[in-house]
C-alpha cells in the first residue's frame, strides 16, 4: 500500500513537472502568464469597485486578492479535471496506469503556480503593513482547500468521461459561482456560508490572515468536514468507474 502510494505521488509529481514546463516553455513571460490572470482581474475590480463597493471593506485590496487567488486555484484545477481523462485516453488505453495520478498531477501543477500567486500576496501584505506571520496560517487552510478541490475534481474527471460537453457546463457553472461567492463584495449571510464551501473557506482565510479574527469553531469544523467528505465521496465515485474508462474512451 505504501509502495503504491509512493508510485502514485512520484508519477503525479513527474507529470505535473512536465506539464508545468510545457506551459511555461517557449514564452519569455513564462510563469508570469500564471499571474497575469488574477492580477489583471484584480486591477480591474479595484478600479471598478475600489471606491464604492470596496470602500466599506477594510483592507479591500487584500480582501479582494485573497478571494481571487483562492477562487482561481479552485477553477483552474476543476476545469482541467473535466477533460483530463479524455485528453489522456491514449495512456489509459495503452498502459495500466492509475488514472487518479492524472487528477492529482493537475492539483500539483496548479500548486506550483499558486506559489507564485502567494509571492504577490506576500508583497501586498507587506505593503499594507499586515503581519507576515499570519500568512503561515494559510498552510493548514490550504490543505483542506486542496482536499475539497481534489474531491470535486475526481468527480468531474469521472463524469467527463461520459459527457462530452462537461467542460462547457462547468465553465458556465464557475462563472455563476464567481458571482455567488463573496469575492469582490462582502457577505455574511449564514446561508451562503452553509451552501457554498468556497465562501466559508474565504471567510476563514480572510478572518484569520487579514483581520486576525477567530471565525468561530462552527464554520471551521463545517469547512473541514465538507472538504474531507468531498474528497472521500469524489474519490469513491471515481474509483467505482475508473476500471471502465478504457472501454468508454
Amino acid at each position: 500500500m505504501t509502495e503504491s502510494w509512493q508510485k502514485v505521488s512520484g508519477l503525479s509529481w513527474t507529470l505535473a513537472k512536465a506539464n508545468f514546463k510545457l506551459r511555461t516553455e517557449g514564452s519569455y513571460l513564462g510563469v508570469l502568464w500564471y499571474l497575469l490572470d488574477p492580477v489583471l482581474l484584480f486591477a480591474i475590480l479595484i478600479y471598478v469597485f475600489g471606491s464604492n463597493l470596496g470602500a466599506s471593506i477594510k483592507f479591500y485590496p487584500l480582501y479582494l486578492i485573497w478571494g481571487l487567488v483562492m477562487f482561481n486555484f479552485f477553477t483552474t484545477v476543476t476545469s482541467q479535471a473535466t477533460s483530463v481523462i479524455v485528453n489522456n485516453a491514449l495512456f489509459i488505453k495503452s498502459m495500466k496506469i492509475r488514472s487518479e495520478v492524472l487528477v492529482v498531477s493537475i492539483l500539483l501543477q496548479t500548486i506550483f503556480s499558486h506559489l507564485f500567486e502567494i509571492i504577490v500576496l506576500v508583497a501586498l501584505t507587506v505593503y499594507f503593513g499586515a503581519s507576515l506571520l499570519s500568512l503561515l496560517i494559510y498552510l493548514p487552510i490550504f490543505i483542506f482547500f486542496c482536499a475539497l478541490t481534489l474531491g470535486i475534481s475526481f468527480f468531474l474527471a469521472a463524469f467527463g468521461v461520459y459527457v462530452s460537453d462537461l467542460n462547457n457546463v462547468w465553465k458556465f457553472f464557475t462563472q455563476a459561482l464567481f458571482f455567488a461567492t463573496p469575492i469582490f463584495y462582502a457577505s455574511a449571510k449564514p446561508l451562503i456560508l452553509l451552501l457554498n464551501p468556497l465562501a466559508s473557506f474565504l471567510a476563514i482565510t480572510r478572518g484569520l490572515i487579514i483581520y486576525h479574527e477567530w471565525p468561530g469553531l462552527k464554520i471551521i469544523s463545517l469547512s473541514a468536514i465538507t472538504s474531507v467528505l468531498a474528497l472521500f465521496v469524489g474519490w469513491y465515485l471515481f474509483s467505482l468507474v475508473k476500471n471502465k474508462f478504457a472501454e468508454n474512451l
Partner: protein
Amino acid sequence: MRINLQGVGKKFNLNFKKREGILARLLSVFSLSKNTNDFWVFRGIDFTPADGQIVGIIGRNGSGKSTLLRVLAGIYQADEGTVKLKGQVAYLTGFGQGLMPKLTMRENIYLVGSLLGLGQKEIKQRFAEIVEFSELGEYIETPVYKFSSGMVSRLSFSTTIFCLKHRNPDILLIDEALEAGTDLNFRNKALNKMEEILLTGANVVLVSHDLVMIEKYCHDVIWLDKGKIVKQGPASEVVEAYVKVNE
C-alpha cells in the same frame, strides 16, 4: 501458474454512444428504452500456460487478440469467467507512447520511465544505459521535436526496454511491439535486447502478425478466430494450419 484464465468472455455494447453531450445523456437516461446490443468479442477462453512459457496469439484482424491482451493487462475488465494473474505484469503496445515533443530527451526518459512504473531513483540508475543504447548521447538536452523519426524510435525503444528490464516482470504482454522503425544496425541491436527480455523466464504473451517471429520465439500458439480458439498447441503446428487456411 502465473496466468490462469477460466471461461473468460468480453462483450461490448454496440449501441454504446461514446461521450454524448449532457443533454443527450439526460434524455437517454429518462427515455427508459433499454438500448443494448451486446457483441461478445470472445467467450469461453481457457488459458493456463506453464510458468516461463512464451505463448503467441495469432488470428485475423478483429478476432479478439488485442482485446484479450487488454483483459490480461487489466485495462479491460472481463464480463464473465475468472482472470487470475500472479506477479508483476507489464503490457507493451508499440513504442513512442507518453513522449512529449516539447520536452528534452532527459525529461522524456524520466517521464516515460515513471509512466512505466519506475521510481525516480530507479530511472536514475538506468539513465546512462538508456542513453548509451540509444546512441543519442549528444542530444540529451535537445527537445524531442527536433529529433528525426528514427531518433524518436531509438529513444522510445531504449527507454521502454530498459525500464521493462529493470522491472523484471513475471508476466509480459506484447501487442505487435517488436517493430522498431530504425536502421538495420539499431534493429539488430534492438532485436537482441528484446530477445534477452523474452528469455528471462517471464511468462510472455505475444500478439503478432509476424509468423516468423511467432515460430521463432513461441512455445505454444493460440489461433483465435471470431472470438473462439480454433487451434492451440505447439507453435509450428498451429502456424502451419493457420497459413494453410489463409492461403
